[in-house]
Every structure is written in C-alpha cells, then in structure tokens.
C-alpha cells in the first residue's frame, strides 16, 4: 500500500496525537469509567492504523518492525500473568488476588488516614492489569494490521510480475 495524498497525510498528523491521547485516557481510566485495556488499546491501534493507511505500509514498516511489536506484545501478556502470580507471593497468597488493595494488601501503607484523603491505589491491581492488556492490544492489533497491509503489497508485486 503506498501513501495517500498530502492532505490526508497532514490531517493524519494533526489528528493522530488526539486519538492517541484519547486511547491512553480510556486505558488509564478503565477502572473508573466505561472502557479499559482492550477498548483503549483498540483506539490507539486504530490511530496507528490510520497512520499506516495515510503513509503506506512500506514507509511504516521502515519506521517500526513487526518483531519489535511482538516483543512488546509478549511483555504485555507477561505483565498480566505476572500480576496474577504476584498475588501468590504478596498479601493473602491467592492466585489473581488483589494484593495491593485487598484486606491485607501492601498498598494500604499509602492509604493511611493520617495522610488525608489522597488515596493512591483505590483500584488495586486493576489499573495495572489494564495497562498490561492495553500494551498487548496496541502491539498485537497494530502488528496484525501492519503485517496484513505489508502482505497485500507483496501480492500486488507478484501479480505485476
């Protein structure tokens, strides 16, 4: 897929940061408002896909490689499952436990009443898990779209030969 016209490219560059920030907001507020890792990740990935469409897959493939994305994806999945395993080590020693804000959670020291109302970890591990899922979804979806777009380029080259 080659790039599109200059107008499209400029508009993409303008919209891209806003779409990105909206997606990241949805990930970060997943525990408070509708949304979460997958939804926000999908928004960010579609922002990336917009860049892909506007600038073409060959240009994008030069900027970011698919194997880097797959490492990021592994890291996201790893973060999620590690959080589950950390529940076995801290606090109540239960798999998938909320080891930060559970009854005996380690996060309780930050939420001391003497410090006022400034509770930091009100949602325990849920935001952390949202971050992990978000990373995985961003990397995974973008890798899928990127590889597919790149594959169609190859099909066209084969056809022209």
């Amino acid at each position, binding site marked *: 897929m080659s790039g599109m016209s200059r107008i499209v490219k400029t508009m993409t560059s303008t919209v891209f940061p806003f779409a990105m920030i909206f997606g990241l907001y949805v990930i970060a507020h997943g525990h408070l408002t509708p949304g979460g890792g997958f939804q926000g990740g999908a928004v960010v990935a579609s922002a990336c896909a917009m860049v892909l469409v506007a600038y073409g897959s060959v240009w994008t493939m030069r900027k970011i490689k698919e194997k880097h994305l797959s490492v990021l994806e*592994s890291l996201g999945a790893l973060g999620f499952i590690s959080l589950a395993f950390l529940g076995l080590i801290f606090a109540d020693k239960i798999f998938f436990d909320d080891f930060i804000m559970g009854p005996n959670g380690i996060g309780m020291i930050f939420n001391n009443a003497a410090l006022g109302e400034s509770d930091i970890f009100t949602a325990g591990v849920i935001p952390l898990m949202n971050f992990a899922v978000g990373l995985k979804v961003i990397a995974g979806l973008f890798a899928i779209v990127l590889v597919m777009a790149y594959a169609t380029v190859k099909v066209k080259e084969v056809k022209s030969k």
Partner: protein
Amino acid sequence: MNIMDHLPALVVAVPLLGAFLTPLVGKVNDKLRNIFVIFIAGLTCALVFLLANQVFTDPDGIITYVFGADTEDTLKSIAEQGNPLVRILFEVDGLSAFMAIIGSLLPLVAVIYSWSFMKEHTGLDKYYTLILLMTAGMLGMMLTGDLFNFFVFLEITSIASAALIAFYTDKGKAMVAGFKYIVISSIGALFILLAIAIFYAQYDALNIAVIANNIQYGFLDKIALVLLIAALGMKSAFAPMHMWLPDAYGRAPASVTFVLIGTTLASLYGVLRVCFTLYGKNLAATGSNLGSLNLTPGFLLGALLVVLAIITIFVGVFMALKQVDLKRMIAYVAVAEIGYMLLAFSAVLISLYGGTSPNTEVVSQTALKGGLFHIFNDALDIGLLFLVAGAIYYATKETSLNKLGGLARNMKYTTIFFLIGLFAASGMPPMNGFASKILIYESTYQVNPILSVIAILCSILILAVFVKVFHSVFLGPEHVSLKNVKEVPKIMLLSMAIISGIIIFFGLFPDVVVNNLISPAAEALTNNKIYISSILGVI
C-alpha cells in the same frame, strides 16, 4: 505460599507464563529456548501428576479452586447465604484429572520431538509459543468448572491450533486446512456460546455445578443440549461432521498433530461433561412410551449417539482404506477410534437409562471403563503412528505411500515403533488397544450384539489398513531416491520410545491402569451429585 494448595491454577498458569516468556528467551539463544520449553512442558506435566495424586487420594475425589479469593471462605459463604456465583472456579474431579494427564503428556513428548523435527524451520519462537498456549487452553478446558470459561479456553485452543496447522505457509493446502479448521471451530464455539447464554438467561449462573443442580429440562434446555452436543461433537469429529479432521491432521506438522489429538479429546471431554454432569439429573426422567420401551431422555440421547458412533467407525475405516497419503490415512483411523469411544459412551447411556437389560450396573461400568481407557489408548496409539509418519517425512520428505518403499532396511528402530503402533491401534493382544477394545466389545454385546459385531469387523479392517501401510512403506524393494535414507535423530527416537514404553506398560498391566486411573474417572462421571455438592454444600 503452599504450592500444593494452588495446583489447579498453576497447571494452567505455568504453560501460559512459559508461552509469553518463550519469544523473549528465544532472543537469547535457540538451544536455550528449546530447553526452556521442554522445562515448562515437563513442569506442567509434573504439576498435573501432583494434582492427579491429590484428587485420587481426596476422600470426595474432587478439588475446588476459586480464583481471586480464598477457596474455603467462598465455599462457606455460598453454602451459608447462597451467594450468587460470580467468581471463576476450577473443579477437578477424577475425570478432569485423568484427561489432564493425557493433555499434559502429549505436549511434553511433542516438544521433545520438535527439537530435531522442526530444527530446519524458521519462526520457531512463535511455534513454541503457540504449542504452550494450546497446552494451557487444553488443560483449562479439562479443569474448569465454569461454562463461559470453558468457551474461552476452547477458543484459545482453536486459535492456537489453527495457526499451527497452517505452519507450513509455503504450502497452499496447509493454509486451506487451517482456514477450514478455524471456520469450523469458530462456528462450533459460537453455538456453544449461544447455549451458555440460554443457560445464563434461565438459571442466572455460569457455574456447571449450579446449573446442573437447577436444570429443569424444559424447552430451552433441550435447545441448549442440542446446540452443545452438535457443536462439541463437531469439534471432536463425530461423522459426518468429521471432515475437517483429515485435512487438519494431514497437513499439520507431525508434532502439532500429536498435540491436536489432545484438543480433539478435550472436546470429547466436553461432550461427556455435558451429557453426564450437566444433564445428569434429567436423563433418567420418564419420557413417552414406544411400545414396551420407555423413551427416557438418556436413552434417546444414547440411541442418537450410537447411530453417530456406527457411522463414524464405518466412514473412518472405509475412507482410510482408500487413502494413499500416509498422514491422511492415519487421520481417518483416528476418526474411527473416536467412533469406538462414542460407541462405548452411548452404550453406557442406553444401558443405564434404557432399563431393559438385567445387569445394567455391570454393563454400564464396563462400557464406561472401556470408553475412558480407550481415550488414553487412542491418544497413545494414534499419536505414536503420527510420530512415525513424521519421522518418515523427516527422513524422506515424502508422505505419499506410492513413492515410499523398503524403508525397513535403513530405519530399523522406526519400523519397530511402527509395528508397536500398528498392533496397538488395531487392537491386537497384548497391546493396550486390545485391553480397552475388549471391554467395549463385551459391554456393547450385552446392549446389542450387532453393535459389537460391527465394531470387531471394523477393527479387523483397521488392521488391514495398517498392513497396507507396512507393506508399502517398510517392505518391498527400495526406491532409487530412497537409497540414502538415514535413521532419524536419536531425540526423535527417544520421544517415540517414551510413547511405546507407555503403550507396552498399559498393555501388560491393564488392571493397574484401570484401578488407579480409570475407576476414579468412571466414578466421577456416573455420580454427578459429588460434583454439585462440592460447590453448593450437601444437598
């Protein structure tokens, strides 16, 4: 942290963790990655054995594990207040533990085999990741006590399997086989999800035990039963919905096929769970009369399944005789073997709920033990044959029977392993296949003699199929192109030897296996009250 308390969770979580670590370890070194994957598969296998030991020595024979909360507190609060169950539970009874042993043994041997078998290919990081994901999904299907969780693990298994079936991306037919598999699996899984939604609408629960306790066998429940049996039956290749299986088994790499057998059996486990545990209460309800016969739901289901079983055996064997591609041929025999298991389980349903035979208890127990024993034997026998087929492909790069010949001269050990697999799969004494098939024959004879006659005749035809393979692959003059064939690497021989050793052990001491592995599973299947009362307290 006491690791023994968390075994059910770890059995699924360890391969999952391993799967996501594999690409990162693969960045360091290929050999390190292979060792790491074998270590993870071995660890999973060890954890499954510990879990099975715990289950078999437990007085009730069932272990419950709650995710994200203390197990005992949760169970107590359910028993006292009848809390709505929103947590995901794992319930491991004898049947689950038995299936999990199969489901963890196959990937372990497969990754050992892949060390040499897949050495020349690229993209092995992803290959090992997917194999471990498949393992996690398969074990999750076998251990879970929650219907929706079952669906999720089913989909994980399907996606990983489909990607692995199409591993040879340079071959168009492999891609087509992968596409067919994912279409079939996703349609099956969607209908399962529809059935789960029907359950949720009626009983406000997703837990198998809670639904099994409340189930009424009304109009919607019958729809759900049909959807579940048809969809899971397609996933476990009941004829005439078996046609994806030869494509998928035939085109996947041999090591992947070996694990795929486990996923097919996991779907068969789903069928058993649905029939015996989920609907266990309703199957004995009185139905309408047909002459002197009382058509109870259980009898009706058994009668439908016995027809499917006979068709499955017939189609599998007849199509296998015709094939010229080695792996497709073994795949059709695998279809026939699934027919044998289905025959045994439908004989259980008919003898338990038909109410005509005088010694129902003995017949149903024999059939159940035979069917469950045959599940394990099928995984071992067909698996060994696929490993041998993979070894032949590795040595000659050829799977067509017409282009092979005289391999016994150069591949002595492979020939011996093939002979062991041949005898075991066609049910010749003293191999394990005979021990389970004789249980099936004897019990089906008491249900209806014609069934056992058909089963024995088709078993002879299976022998004929493998005699054809043996004749055209290992005997006869050598082809010119096959003069320089060498024996496969030692590590592939080792993995075949492990499976052969288990086959011979099972064949020589069937009583040990039946008493220690099969009986708890059979007990868990016939008595679904234990499954329900372990969650809801004594009822």
